């Protein structure tokens, strides 16, 4: 085998090897199952929103479509943020050159801008489904929902085995959000 062929084999192995390995390690359907779970959570939240804001079935369906349509953009921003956190957590950070540091700073701005742009575009789309008043109440619900998730994420937080949800969740009519 000449060295060219050896190199080809090596390049293919390093390119395709990890992909194949990932496929073998991940339990069959594990990724799909996770996505289904996340989708069910979002559907449950949308139904809660429907009840709280007294949305029609058509409005609910449109709302879910809007939320779904921004899912990939949101994941991309999330990934960019996680990548930045990863870089900032690098033990070699103190030795960073000024150029590399500037690159990180520029990336921070870019990611923030992307997030604001996403927020703006989503708000415009949501306003095609909800009235301004409903949208403000929707944001309030989502904020509360996010807080509940964050609470569950914390070590020792109120999750399975760690106690129930905080008082007042899910938000009821007492919250003033009901129609």
């Amino acid at each position, binding site marked *: 085998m000449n060295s060219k062929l050896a190199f080809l084999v090596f390049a*293919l192995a*390093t*390119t395709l090897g990890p992909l194949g390995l990932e496929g073998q390690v991940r339990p069959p359907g594990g990724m799909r199952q996770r996505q289904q*779970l996340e989708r069910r*959570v979002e559907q449950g939240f949308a139904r809660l929103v429907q009840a709280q804001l007294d949305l029609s079935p058509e409005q609910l369906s449109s709302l879910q479509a809007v939320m779904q349509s921004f899912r990939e953009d949101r994941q991309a921003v999330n990934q960019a943020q996680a990548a930045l956190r990863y870089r900032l*957590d690098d033990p070699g950070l103190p030795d960073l050159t000024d150029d590399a540091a500037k690159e990180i700073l520029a990336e921070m701005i870019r990611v923030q801008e992307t997030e604001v742009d996403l927020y703006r575009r989503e708000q415009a789309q949501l306003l095609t489904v909800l009235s301004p008043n409903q949208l403000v109440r929707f944001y309030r619900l989502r904020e509360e929902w996010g807080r509940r998730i*964050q609470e569950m994420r914390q070590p020792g937080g109120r999750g399975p085995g760690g106690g129930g949800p905080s008082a007042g969740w899910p938000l009821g009519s007492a919250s003033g959000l009901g129609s």
Partner: protein
Amino acid sequence: MSAKDCDRIRDVLPEWILGTMGPELGIEMTRHLASCPDCRREEEVLRRLLSVRPTPPEGLAARIQARLKEEVGTGLEPEAPKTAGDVIPLFRRHRWTPTWALSAAAVVILSLGIGIVWNGAEIPEVGQSSGQVASEDPAPEAWLWDDGMVAGAPVYDGLTDDQLEALIEELEG
């Protein structure tokens, strides 16, 4: 230009593409590639292969080196970059590296991967949810964007499947 010249050139194409070749050799490569369409085609194919090769996250090499240094101790100083003076001209070069070495390396890498799976060893799952980045240490507790929200909506990173099930129950209950 003989077939022998082409063989020699193709043997060092990977180094040429990876930019690890010294300047003297670079001149010879440039001359040869300018006059040999077959070798240029070969170069193009290898460049394409390399362009799809996944790149490790930035800083990974430094982390591994630092960890190895911690665990093993000394003797792991990074190799100094080669200077032009260190490079042996192409046609005087001793090919002491057996050509089967790269193939063997590829086989070892694949075998290790298969072996790990075969033995059921646990491998941290990378990116179970799309936003996750593999890291041995937990994310800092308080940092930019550490509220689990992106553009006003929650993301589900860091939640287990059981926790998601619990959330669904809360919503449905």
